[in-house]
């Protein structure tokens, strides 16, 4: 009797073990990556970060071709907020997203892990119509300003406003996505637009004037973007996560090399933003610091600051714990494997280079 019982228990245990290993060894059919930007061009693509390089050079597709795993890049016109919806929906596994929208997602219970940075120390620009009487941020009081709420533009904009003694409530903020904001600015439907490198194109066409670039006020006035993964996917397929991170580090390395500058901007130009705009956005010598994937004290400090700002601005209702959100072991492994431990300089919390 007891022998039979033992046999039955062993049989069940073996069956469970088999099922478990089968589940663990199970590979996903597709890896889905959400990009918090509108895809432009045909086929749709984007630019301005090492993630874009990875997508354009098809690094992931090549990496996983042998395993028969497809890679799907999904673009979101609604940017960070729309990516949050897709994450909640479980429609994507990885996401390239900005700091604030990820904080908003985390505050609302999304379970994610930040793997590496992709596009840091990025400034925010404010553009106005060429004949406008707005010359500085202080003149924005009472004006109609287009701002894409919930994206990482918002916190930088709010900080810049605060620095000049203004509050969002003293402006008339209209929520517009990137493309709509550009159209509205060109047709003078709004008095100012808080935007990114897309403003350079308007400036070159004579349709806008840039009155403010936030990175000039210091690294505290920049925004960051990263690659994150859902906790579920990470638990199920840590090996795949590692390979993805390694590919991203390769892409970051290529994008950080000044020798690749022209090729890089030419590739990014497939998204419809011209090479001259990229040249204006990335001053010579800045490629390495902008495309660094490191999660250093500066990054951690910035994310903590964004979380605090979000709470202060009542964008989130309870505080967000940034500790434990970053999962850097994949990044460390990748740097070690590719022997790139000293490729990029880490920065301290104040934004100064370490050592």
């Amino acid at each position: 009797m007891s022998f039979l019982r033992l046999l039955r228990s062993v049989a069940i245990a073996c069956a469970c073990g088999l099922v478990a290993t089968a589940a663990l060894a199970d590979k996903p059919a597709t890896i889905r990556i959400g990009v918090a930007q509108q895809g432009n061009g045909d086929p749709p693509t984007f630019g301005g970060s090492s993630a874009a390089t990875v997508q354009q050079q098809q690094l992931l597709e090549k990496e996983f071709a042998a395993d028969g795993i497809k890679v799907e890049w999904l673009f979101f016109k609604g940017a960070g907020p729309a990516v949050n919806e897709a994450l909640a929906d479980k429609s994507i596994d990885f996401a390239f997203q900005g700091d604030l929208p990820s904080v908003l997602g985390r505050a609302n219970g999304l379970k994610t892990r930040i793997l590496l940075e992709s596009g840091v120390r990025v400034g925010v620009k404010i553009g106005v119509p060429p004949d406008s009487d707005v010359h500085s941020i202080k003149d924005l009081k009472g004006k109609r300003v287009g701002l894409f709420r919930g994206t990482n533009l918002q916190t930088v904009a709010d900080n810049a406003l605060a620095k000049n003694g203004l509050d969002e409530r003293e402006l008339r903020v209209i929520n517009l996505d990137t493309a709509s904001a550009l159209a509205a600015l060109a047709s003078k439907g709004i008095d100012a637009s808080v935007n990114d490198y897309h403003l350079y194109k308007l400036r070159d066409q004579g349709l806008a004037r840039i009155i403010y670039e936030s990175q000039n006020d210091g690294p505290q006035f920049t925004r960051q973007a990263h690659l994150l993964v859902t906790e579920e996917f990470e638990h199920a397929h840590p090996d795949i996560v590692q390979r993805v991170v390694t590919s991203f580090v390769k892409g970051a390395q290529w994008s950080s090399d000044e020798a690749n500058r022209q090729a890089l901007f030419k590739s990014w130009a497939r998204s419809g933003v011209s090479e001259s705009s990229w040249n204006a956005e990335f001053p010579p010598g800045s490629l390495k610091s902008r495309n660094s994937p490191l999660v250093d004290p500066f990054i951690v400090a910035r994310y903590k600051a964004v979380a605090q700002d979000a709470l202060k601005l009542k964008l989130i209702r309870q505080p967000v714990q940034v500790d434990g959100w970053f999962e850097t072991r994949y990044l460390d492994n990748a740097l070690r494997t590719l022997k790139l431990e000293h490729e990029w300089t880490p920065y301290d919390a104040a934004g100064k280079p370490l050592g």
Partner: protein
Amino acid sequence: MSDTVTLHLQTASSQIPTHRRTVTQRWRSLGWALAPWALPAALIALWWLGCERGWIAPQILPPPARVYATFVDLAQSGDLLHNTLISLQRVLCGFVAGTLGGLLLGAALGLSRTFEAYVLPSFNAIVQIPVLGWLPFLLLLVGVGEPLKYILIAHAALVPATLSTLQGFRNVPVTLIEASRVFGYTRWQRIVHVVLPCAVPTLATGVRLAFTKAWLALVVVELVASSEGLGYLIVYGRQLFQLDLVMAAVVIVGAIGFAINRALDALERRLRRGLPSAFR
């Protein structure tokens, strides 16, 4: 509604002893009175259960309690009133402008054959383009400010108002017109005393339709480009990934649209005379 029920009761009454008849009647009428609430109650119960059991992620479907709390929050902070008033002001201005314009245009089209011959074909062509088709055009033309909203809402109201007015004027029975001619009415008297009263029911329907379209246009234009208003609240909630705010705002939009629609419906019913029918 009463026919079959009464019949059934009459049959039943002859078979059931007196005291039980009253109880059965009471239960039946109670059930009948509560019936409309069965479906909403079931849905809310399902919603609550789904959130409790975690069938759906709370970011996608916030629990009812949370939505209610947000609603209270909005009301208390004054945001609700502020945004509602702005939306109402926009829709009322646009609706009144569009409806008045529609009534005038429809009257002109209905009364003057010449005017109709020149204008109606162009008007019909414009009608084929749905209200939303004009949105990108107006976005380019007038930008994202208040004029965009007023123009779009007024246009949305104008079309059904004009068409209904036109139909109302045209559908006046010819016998009445001829009778008024016999009695020597002047053109003005004919319009005021014969045509208008006949056209009023159709006009009322047109006004109600115009409001529905105007409210629809308001929601869309506020979703697309706005810095204040109920649609703006919806967008704000969505951008900040606060679905409970979105749901609370949607409920309010629905409630207001419903209330005003009901009021106009009652008005229309008073102006129309209905026919008795088999199933009412």
